[in-house]
């Protein structure tokens, strides 16, 4: 510890070099943080919803299958089920926008029973429930699109040959991990529009989202639902909300593999860069190191001092890169770039993990230079002209 002031002075001896190395680490950490935050966020959202004991019931043929709306009542009557709603994906186009956001036809009377973590003023809930063409939107998407209560939202059908004209009646909020980028509206309005257009796909519940009475009821409920519909026209596949969420990431393909590969390349590049910095520092100070040794500093102290210096530079970059990225994305909302993303922020553990990673980069990059410093020969070192 008593060497700390010396180490810190060494870190800032060649200011430009240390700062450039730190910045290089910080900037390169940024995309890494972005990618890992995306993964961590998926995990966070999945684990935070676990307490609500929700189960998604899909058609056995996947999301494209048609689940009859009558199933919602049958699911609701299963023992252990608290309540159930349809979530029918509309997938309409909003104005001229190319990218889509989540639009679901659902049951407004029961919606908040299934999603108790969503908060909305009671008068707005009532207004939504009483207006057949009304819709409820998440606070994140409302802000992105600039929607206010009373705004008209036209949606052109893409999957279905009908256009809807909705009115914003409520804006819901919720905890950080809750998806606040949905637009939900009356299933009745949706289905009547389909019937008017005489399409064969009316009465499609999409998926059914249900809540069980307790966590222990989840797997018996899933089993009983699966067997109840097994021999019907539309057999179903129930899965927990967590599995359902994970299946979307899985559909994207080998996302984790791609992220891991990019991360490895970045970390190796950074170790090279930081090692180069440390090697330069050792080379410049050969004479000084020899002098230190001559007056009685032993190898281990010198080794430790250089390693500490290298870790300090790594930490410098890590703090800027890790914590900085977190704050940057609390200012910038990435979901305005792609509404399909839903929402985006950097969790604390991702940021801290970044800091730790940077420190580790510092440590690894310092190993060889520090070892070389520790083994500087006193006589040759003192003689050396740098």
């Amino acid at each position, binding site marked *: 510890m008593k060497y700390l002031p010396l180490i810190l002075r060494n870190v800032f001896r060649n200011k*430009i*070099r240390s700062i450039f190395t730190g910045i*290089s680490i910080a900037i390169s950490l940024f995309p890494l943080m972005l*990618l890992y935050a995306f993964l961590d966020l998926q995990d966070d959202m999945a684990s935070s919803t676990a307490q609500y004991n929700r189960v998604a019931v899909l058609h056995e043929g996947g*999301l494209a299958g048609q689940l009859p709306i009558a199933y919602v009542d049958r699911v609701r009557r299963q023992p252990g089920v608290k309540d159930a709603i349809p979530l029918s994906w509309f997938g309409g186009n909003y104005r001229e926008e190319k*990218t889509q956001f989540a639009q679901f036809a659902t049951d407004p009377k029961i919606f908040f029973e299934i999603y108790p973590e969503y908060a909305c003023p009671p008068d707005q809930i009532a207004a939504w429930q009483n207006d057949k063409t009304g819709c409820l939107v998440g606070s994140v998407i409302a802000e992105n699109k600039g929607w206010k209560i009373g705004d008209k939202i036209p949606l052109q059908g893409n999957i279905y040959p009908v256009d809807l004209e909705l009115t914003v009646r409520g804006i819901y909020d919720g905890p950080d991990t809750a998806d606040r980028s949905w637009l939900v509206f009356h299933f009745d309005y949706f289905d009547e529009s389909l019937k008017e257009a005489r399409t064969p796909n009316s009465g499609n519940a999409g998926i059914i989202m249900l809540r069980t009475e307790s966590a222990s009821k989840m797997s018996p409920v899933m089993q009983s639902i699966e067997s109840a519909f097994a021999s019907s026209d539309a057999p179903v596949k129930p899965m927990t909300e967590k599995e359902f969420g994970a299946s979307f990431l899985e*559909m994207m*393909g080998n996302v984790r593999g791609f992220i891991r590969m990019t991360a490895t390349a970045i970390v190796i*590049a950074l170790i090279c*860069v930081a090692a180069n910095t440390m090697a330069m520092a050792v080379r410049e100070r050969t004479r000084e190191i020899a002098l230190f040794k001559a007056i009685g500093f032993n190898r281990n102290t010198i080794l430790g001092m250089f390693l500490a210096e290298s870790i300090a530079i790594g930490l410098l970059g890590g703090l800027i890169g890790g914590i900085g990225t977190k704050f940057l994305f609390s200012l910038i909302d990435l979901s305005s770039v792609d509404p399909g993303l839903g929402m985006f922020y950097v969790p604390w553990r991702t940021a801290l993990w970044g800091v730790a990673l940077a420190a580790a980069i510092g440590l690894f990059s310092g190993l060889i230079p520090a070892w070389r410093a520790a083994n500087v020969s006193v006589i040759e070192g003192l003689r050396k002209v740098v």
Partner: protein
Amino acid sequence: MVPLKYNVRSLRARKVGSLMTIFGIGMVVWASIFAFGLSSGLDRTLEIAAEPLDVIVLRKGSTSEAVSAVTEKAARDIKALPGIATGADGQPLAASELVVFAYLPRRGADIKVNVSVRGVDAVSRALRKEMTIVEGRELKPGLREAIVSRAMANRFQNLGLGDKFKVDGGEFEVVGIFEAGGGAVESEIWTDQRVLAQIAKRTGAMSSLQFRAASVADQERLIERIKNDEQIDLGALTEKQYYAEQAAQSGLIKFVGYIIAFVLTIGAMFAVANTMYGAIASRAREIGTLRALGFGRFSILTAFMLESLLLCLAGAALGCLAALAVNFLLGGIQTGTMNPGTFTEVAFSFDFGPKILLQGIFLAIVMGLIGGFLPAFRAVRMKVVDALREV
């Protein structure tokens, strides 16, 4: 001018430092090339599919075949329109096709994903000349048989030659494996249209009608005609437009890839600057000597900028070679993702073509020029007398 040999030798004199920097830059270029190669590979898959004269007819307002419907009557009416190219047998080159989803697990995964199954008629093959059966045999009409692309057969369970899989409860046997030059067809399973319609309980309407126009003028005229004909009441667009819209849906992947490459390039600039500062600091006396010998400031600036560029180009070469080597060893990197527009699997392979490699090299040049400028400028500003005196 200071000879280039001087810079090469200087880099060699500081072997370890130069190599470290080259390796670091190489890694950054490598990661960038992968990010570019991924998004370009995905785009290419969708672009290759497009035949310039081909037109896709869909339900008005729908942007993908899977959610579209074209009645048999409308299909007959359109096929009778003048201006559609004819095949060798004199029949119009127009095919009604049905697209439904199969829900299948990838190899090594439990979770199932949607895969497009296309029910085709006799003309469909004539519209896609690039398609060839590489294993097994052709479809026989009227049977529960399927042909599958090589890419999908490799990616999915139950899609190998001789395997059986289910679509809407009906079982199909894979009788052939095809290749189609990497286009969008390579993400599909093909079956007989009538058999598929029966199993999927789709009667009276197919998903789309595809046809080839006889000329560009015919193409424009036919598209207008179909769009404005109240009897037909359908939407039509060129195949090129259709796939361009699909590609627009994968914007997030592209965006993330470019952000990564852009940010890493900036990070690498600082690393280059560091290396060059180090190189210049330890060569102050040399620089003084060069100046004393009569080399002008501009020559010195160019020399150090060149040295920085050399360093980065060596890194770029390493990055490109590494990417090509990985691609070669794996025999092309085949992968797949979900098309966010249609929620179906798109199989594609990474694109490491000359354009992508040049983009990587371009990034390295930017690193070298910007990262090397400040250090080179410092070398120029040194006073001859001071520099010579420095130890």
